[in-house]
Structures are given as structure tokens and as C-alpha cells.
């Protein structure tokens, strides 16, 4: 035991204490301790792995019809059964996961980029620009998402791009408002004045100094919006406003199954369960991330 006090180990202990401690272990430990969050992570991992390795995991084609096999119950040949056109539901669910994740990632990234930039400009720019942007944000937010979707699809037709556009238009204003508010409270901070007195220009202040100060809570919020985006995509596809058939999307699978629910309940289950798994998984994971990184943001935000 006394050996621990020998000079060599004492030195290394001092050196270790003097180093700034890296944060990684801290947050990781906190995240691991959140059981619901870990459960969410497992669900998300299932969905992601299924979507990424869809071609390896099944040998069926998601859109080739095989009328003889229609309405098969789950079994060894068809893990989740088949739909009204004899397509393997398991394959369609995995490929539907690709659509769901693509929309979730692309739309969230796009609404983040748009919302955060407009929010920075609104918060830091002149008053009239702030007023104009806030008016725009509020106008967009006042539309119910489904109404916005109906209007847009009427204009540009159902497509993957239309789904993404609806999500961006309904999501970006929320990010914009939050970023704007935070920028307004920060732009009078002395460190911003100090930067300006050092000759920093507007772009440098916005992107090097203000953005890192406001982005944390926004990223957490965005991660919690992913399940919402997944349900918007599924909902629009179910209503025929989203990805047009025969492309497999969870909403399409649900819609096809819904029409033939008297023949077989398996297509409805195959379409519904992935939506539940994905939204629950992302919600649990998002909440765990939020609790880990920013305990100040409340659930109701």
C-alpha cells in the first residue's frame, strides 16, 4: 500500500489532476445510466440496422408482386407475412425504414439549417428584419401541419420532396424563434462587445461566437423532433400525400393493409409496429440526450 506514495506515482497523480478533465466519460456514464434511454437506443439501432442492411437481410424485392402468395400469415418464408399483392411485408418494412430515416434526417437537417440561420439573422440583424422574419415564422406556424401538407401537395404533387418541404416549413420556424431569442439575450453580452472591439466582423461573431452558444439546446430539440417527422411522413403517405406507391413506406404499407383489413390483419400490424418502434425509440433516446446535456430544457418546450 505504501508503494502508492512513491515519487513516480505521486508525480503521475499530480499530472493527471492538473490536466483539464475530458468530459466524455461523464456524459457517457450519465447516458448509460438512463435505462429508458438505452432501451430507446436499442430500438433506434434495430431500425437503423434494418434500413441500412435491408438488401442483405432479405432476398425479396420490395415491389415485385406475387399474387399467388397474397395475404400469407407470418412464417418462415415471410417473416411478417405478405400484403394484398403478395409482396413480402418484412422486406417492405425494412425498405420503408429507409424512406422514414431519409426523410427524418434530410428534413431535420434542412429545417435546422434554415431555422438556425434565419434565427441568427433575426436576432442579430436590424429590428425591421427581425419583425419581418418573426411575422413569417408565426404565419408558417399558424398552419396545422396537415393543412400545410394538403396545400403543398395540391401545388407540387405527392413526392418525397413534398414531404421534406412540409416538414421544413413547419419545423424551421420553431428553431428560428428559439435561436432568435437566445441571440437577442446574448448579443449584448460583454464577450460579444469584446470581440467587436477586437475588430471581429458580423459573420465571425455570428458563426464563431454566437452559434456555438445557442446550438446545444437546438440540437437536442431537433433530436426530439425526429419521431414527429417520422409520423408526419407516415401520416402523409397514409393519406396518399407522401411517397407515391409502390415505393414502400410505412404509411403506404399501413394504407394498403387498412383497405384489406377484413382479409388479413398482418399488413396493418407490419405497417404500424415499425412506426411505434421508431418513434418510441427516438423519443426515449432524445429525452435521455436532453436530460444528459441540458437538464434545463423541460419536456413541454
Amino acid at each position, binding site marked *: 500500500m505504501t508503494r502508492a506514495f512513491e515519487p513516480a506515482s505521486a508525480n503521475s497523480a499530480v499530472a493527471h489532476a492538473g490536466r483539464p478533465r475530458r468530459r466524455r466519460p461523464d456524459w457517457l456514464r450519465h447516458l448509460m445510466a438512463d435505462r429508458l434511454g438505452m432501451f430507446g437506443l436499442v430500438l433506434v439501432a434495430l431500425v437503423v440496422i434494418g434500413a441500412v442492411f435491408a438488401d442483405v437481410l432479405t432476398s425479396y424485392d420490395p415491389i415485385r408482386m406475387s399474387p399467388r402468395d397474397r395475404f400469407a400469415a407470418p412464417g418462415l418464408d415471410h417473416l411478417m407475412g405478405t400484403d394484398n399483392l403478395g409482396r413480402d411485408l418484412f422486406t417492405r418494412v425494412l425498405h420503408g425504414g429507409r424512406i422514414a430515416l431519409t426523410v427524418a434526417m434530410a428534413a431535420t437537417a434542412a429545417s435546422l439549417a434554415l431555422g438556425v440561420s434565419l434565427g441568427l439573422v433575426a436576432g442579430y440583424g436590424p429590428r425591421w428584419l427581425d419583425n419581418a422574419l418573426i411575422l413569417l415564422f408565426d404565419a408558417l406556424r399558424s398552419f396545422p401541419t396537415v393543412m400545410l401538407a394538403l396545400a403543398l401537395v395540391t401545388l407540387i404533387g405527392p413526392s418525397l420532396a413534398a414531404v421534406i418541404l412540409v416538414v421544413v416549413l413547419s419545423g424551421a420556424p420553431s428553431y428560428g424563434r428559439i435561436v432568435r431569442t437566445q441571440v437577442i439575450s446574448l448579443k449584448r453580452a*460583454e464577450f460579444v462587445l469584446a470581440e467587436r472591439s477586437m475588430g471581429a466582423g458580423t459573420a465571425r461573431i455570428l458563426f464563431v461566437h454566437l452559434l456555438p452558444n445557442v446550438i446545444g439546446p437546438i440540437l437536442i430539440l431537433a433530436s426530439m423532433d425526429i419521431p414527429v417527422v417520422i409520423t408526419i411522413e407516415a401520416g402523409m403517405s397514409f393519406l396518399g400525400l407522401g411517397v407515391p406507391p409502390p415505393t414502400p413506406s410505412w404509411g403506404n404499407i399501413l394504407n394498403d393493409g387498412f383497405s384489406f383489413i377484413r382479409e388479413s390483419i398482418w399488413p396493418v400490424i407490419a405497417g404500424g409496429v415499425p412506426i411505434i418502434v421508431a418513434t418510441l425509440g427516438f423519443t426515449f433516446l432524445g429525452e435521455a440526450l436532453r436530460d444528459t446535456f441540458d437538464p434545463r430544457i423541460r419536456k413541454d418546450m
Partner: protein
Amino acid sequence: MASGPILEIDGLSVGYATMRGPMRALRDVSMTVPRGGMVGIVGESGCGKSTLMNAILGLMPANGRIAGGRILFDGRDLVGLDAATMRRLRGDRLSVVFQDPMTALNPVHTIGAQMVDIQYRLTGSRAAKRARAAAMLAKVRMPDPRHHLDQYAHEFSGGMRQRICIAMALMAEPDLLICDEPTTALDATLEVQMLDLLRDLQREIGCAVIFISHHLGLIAELCAQVVVMYAGQVVERGSVRDIFHRPAHPYTRRLLDCDPARIRERAEVLPTIPGDVPDLVELPPGCIFSPRCPVAEGRCHTTVPPDVAVADGHHARCLLARPGEGAA
């Protein structure tokens, strides 16, 4: 190097547009900062010290406007200079140390990241910029600077943070450093350390310093020249010796009386200057200090006093001040 003072402010007037009308925050302010010299600006809160600083830096708020006068920096008038040229001067030839080191550093970047970032005008590798940052931290007597570069602002004490701010302000070896009450937020024991540090660095770099404070003792300790401001005017300026030993303006005298360090007898109630700083939207007609002045005469309330030279380099804005009788 060109001769002449590094900064010469001549008849500067600044106004703010307010709901009640124009607020005349600075009126006919003149002062001179010699090359490599240290000038103290002293005055109560709201006397226009910060407005003066912002006017020099060209960082006026949107409702502020320079109504007249000149700010000659190294012979060039900064008033009306375009924003881009002004921006190039800031952080290169002019820089600032702010009052509160707790908020003057960005909380989300490490010290090293910020110190590397402010060198964006220089070319050179990141490693070279980091080395420069570490060298600058060593100059402000920060022990083990390389390792501190990876820490965040909140991991430092107030005194350490102010050292970091000073290091950042001096990074570009400016010609003029403005210190806006740099020790107000610090403990009294740290103030002395910070003064020594500033004085040593000023000698080493050879920059001129404007030291804004409401602490007369600090200014006497540090500066050669003093500018006394009251309600947007320079009421008296001169050498430290003149101001402290032969104050010509009643306001300066009252200010000296209120300095606890100069009170010799035991006093039940510490001396104060009765009354408040006047409203700068509706100015009193005569001398700005007349409502609070203990020696004001009838004409003081009606006539605006001119800037009188009571001695060589010693000016006071008082009707009762006479050339050669500074000790009145």
C-alpha cells in the same frame, strides 16, 4: 514613428436619441493621450466614460450619433471613418480590456481557441498561433500557460480571467489600450497586482493606455495625466500632481474629499456630494455642476463656463478658476 499625440480628442459631442428628445451624453470633450503615455479618466457613473470609449472605438449604439468634434488617432480623424477601416483599426491598433472578466470571455470556447481565433488577421499555422497565445499568457504571468490554453473561462478565477483578457487585448501590440474599469470587479488585493502588471506590460509594449476608473487612488498610482469628467463634460484635466494637489474645479475637490483613502479624521458620516447628476436631456442653463456646487455664485447658474487654462497643461471648466491660482 510619427510625432504628436497618439490620440487627440477635440471638442467631441455625442448625443443619443431618446423618447424625451436628444440626450447630450458628451459635450465639447477635449483630451490628449501622448504616445506611450497613461491617462486616467475619472468620474461618477453616467458621466459619459463609456460613451467616450464607444465613440473612440466607433461602436456607438444605433441611437447614438457624434454631433461634432474630432477624434484624431495617430493624426487620422476617426469620426466619419467608414466601418471597414474602423474595424481594421480595432484589435490591431486599438484594443480594450473590459470591466467584468466574468462575462468578457466566450463561455463555450477554450481560452486557447479564443486566443487563436483573434489572430485571424495573421497568416501562419495553428501551432504558431497557439505558441503566440501561450507566450502572451506567460507575459501576463500566468503559470503553465500551455496547459491553461485547453481550459474554459469558467475554470479560472476572476483575477486569472482578467489576465487572460489583458493578454488578448495586448496580443496585437496595439498603439492604444483602453481599460474600462479593469479592476472594479476584482478584490482589492488583486487590484494592486493588476496595476503592476499593466504598468510593466505598458512599458514593455510601449502602448498608450487610457485607464477609466472611479477609483482616484488607482489613477494616481498609475497615470501621469488625469481627466475628470462630470455629466458629459471634461471639468478638469492636467497632470496627476496638478489634479491631486492643486485641484481647480470644485467638483474635483469634492471628489477628492470623498475618497476614503484621503479622509484623515474619524468621521461619523462619510462625505458625499449632495444632489444628483443632472438630466442630460434638459440641461441646466449655466455651469453643469452649479446645482451641486458649494461655492457657486449667481453667474454660475446662468453662464456656461469656458475651458480655462489655470496653468500650463492644466485646464478647468469653472468661472471661478483663474490662471495661476489653481489652489483656490
